[in-house]
């Protein structure tokens, strides 16, 4: 349901904006030197003269059932899910998306695991060694992580580890093609992206942990005679996950923004780079497709987070 609303809104925006901006999709499609006849042909083929709602219906229909683009006898069938064709390359959008999606997912999932493990661990250790050198160092690094932009840390790590030291090769390979290469090509982007987020999680974990260690139920846990390891691992950590999950839900949505920069920096053929290219080319169908994928990504991520909430906090469970 939410996905549908997002789709509708996105679509409306993307069809309205060119109109308001005075640019004609047909013109974009054909290119600068074009005769009016060709433009008219494109208009018919993409049914750009139909009312907006009808166009929208065609688009939705195309997503689920496939769609035929017809200009006289020249019929192009676009199988479902049809996102149309790129204005620039005249390639179908869907295959481009399916090519780019795994790259972004690999990047996001790997970075996510890395920043959760790294950030939460650093936060816990910092909280337990509050005020010590370790704490200060970790929080200093965290501050740097939040402050330094990806294109700085990214390029720096690229320069050092790839060009200077030659430790890793950053040419992307699919995980099914060559898992080792896949891992190697993504390790730097993972670290770069994770560094940005891990900092926030370290600080959040530290603050939450400090608060929770002062809770009465932690004292109760100690009063039972539990080992300190169990008190922290079982009792304190359990409560720490709730705010971390909340932040994760928000961040997974915003993650694509970070992915855009990371993918551009490391030249990864993911959704982010696809979006950047499409935007600079005014390639509307591709932009639309990427946006929808991003929306899908956010919705699914939030669904997972909501489900995890219920697992973590029994008070959230209904019935």
């Amino acid at each position, binding site marked *: 349901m939410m996905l549908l609303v997002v789709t509708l809104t996105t679509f409306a925006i993307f069809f309205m904006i060119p109109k308001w901006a005075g640019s004609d999709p047909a013109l974009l499609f054909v290119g600068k030197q074009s005769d009016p006849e060709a433009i008219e042909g494109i208009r018919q083929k993409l049914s750009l003269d139909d009312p907006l709602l009808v166009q929208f219906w065609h688009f939705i229909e195309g997503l689920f059932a496939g769609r035929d683009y017809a200009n006289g006898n020249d019929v192009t069938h676009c199988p479902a899910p049809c996102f149309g064709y790129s204005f620039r390359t005249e390639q179908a959008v869907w295959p481009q998306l399916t090519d780019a999606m795994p790259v972004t997912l690999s990047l996001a999932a790997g970075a996510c695991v890395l920043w959760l493990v790294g950030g939460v661990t650093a936060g816990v250790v910092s*909280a*337990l*060694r*509050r*005020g*010590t050198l370790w704490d200060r160092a970790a929080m200093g690094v965290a501050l740097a992580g939040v402050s330094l932009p990806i294109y700085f840390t990214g390029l720096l790590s690229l320069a050092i580890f790839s060009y200077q030291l030659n430790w890793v090769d950053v040419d992307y390979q699919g995980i099914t093609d060559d898992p080792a290469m896949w891992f190697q090509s993504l390790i730097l982007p993972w670290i770069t992206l994770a560094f940005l987020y891990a900092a926030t999680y370290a600080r959040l974990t530290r603050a939450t942990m400090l608060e929770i*260690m002062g*809770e*009465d*139920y*932690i*004292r*109760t*846990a*100690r*009063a*039972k*005679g*539990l*080992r*300190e390891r169990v*008190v922290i691992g079982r*009792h304190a950590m*359990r*409560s720490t996950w709730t705010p971390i999950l909340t932040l994760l839900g928000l961040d997974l949505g915003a993650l694509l923004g970070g992915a855009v920069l990371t993918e551009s920096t490391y030249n990864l053929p993911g959704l982010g780079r696809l979006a950047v290219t499409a935007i600079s080319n005014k390639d509307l169908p591709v932009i639309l497709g990427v946006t929808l994928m991003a929306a899908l990504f956010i919705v699914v991520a939030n669904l997972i987070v909501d489900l995890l909430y219920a697992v*973590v*906090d*029994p*008070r959230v469970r209904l019935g």
Partner: protein
Amino acid sequence: MTDIEKSGTAKPAKLDKPETTGDLPATGTALGEVAAAGSPAPTAFLEVRDLKVHFPTDDGLVKSVDGLSFRLEKGKTLGIVGESGSGKSVTSLGIMGLHTAGQYGRRKAQISGEIWLNGQELLGADPDEVRKLRGREIAMIFQDPLSALHPYYTIGRQISEAYRVHHDVTKDVARKRAVEMLDRVGIPQPDKRVDSYPHEFSGGMRQRAMIAMSLVNNPELLIADEPTTALDVTVQAQILDLIRDLQKEFGSAVIIITHDLGVVAELADDLLVMYGGRCVERGPAEKVFYEPQHPYTWGLLGSMPRIDRDQTERLIPVKGSPPSLINIPSGCAFHPRCPYADVPKDNITRTERPELREAGSGNHFSACHMTQEERTRIWTEEIAPKL
């Protein structure tokens, strides 16, 4: 009869000789020195000697407990009474060893003195040995059962966890034990409620569950820190009855910490009144109630609401506010608030700290500069008629 005999002071005081402390130094009366200087293990079940718990802060050293001694026998109940910040809870956490467990960062509580439980000294013992005693030998009930129970784990899980720390049993056995304990503390349908979460329980049931958890290992010493403060009045009575019944059944020694004299009036064999981190009066409960020997105790009694009193009469609060524990008033800590501070001659209340001295009869002690006669006169003529 008495379980409290030991003075927490280093100066000679007129105390009767405790039969359990063994050889006394030649001076004979310096009980505080005996207690503090590593005298032989006491035969009493629990003996606290000159306990001091200080916390360093930015503003200075907070002397939460500053020289406290008492003794408790098995099967007996000691009530520790005092207002907020008098050091009641800090004392109980000190006995549990919870000031040193789980201290992170650099600022640590400074604890000195001796705590003897069953002939074993706890403050100098290996922390892991003390940890093993926690929950098994010494258990604690906390003030607010909602915040003292972990919100994300079921009641049964939390109780069986307390059991499994000290018993090598399977989850099923521990669960059965949890159900048994819930049944024992009067929770209906214990086999179902064992899977409930704390937020699904009412306040009274939560406290019952908390009690079940603390008694799951049959502890020999139960410390109840304001066990009824967070509860309704009707539930309070039930919980107190429950604690009393369970004490009879398990034969544990109980320390009840409260600011409510009504609570200890029902339960305690002995009373210890704390003010500013020290004991100002202690003795058998009925003595402290009916022949109180310290102006602060008079104040507490005067501020206690009573059903048998004329309702139009106002309660008499203790004037002023609790003392700063960083700059404890010189002399008697209570003197800025004491209406009778001028009674002893030569301004002694302001310059010299009063030691615990025998007052009245029968192991009743008070730390007040006034003479026995002065106190008796003020109590019988001025205070008692108004109560």
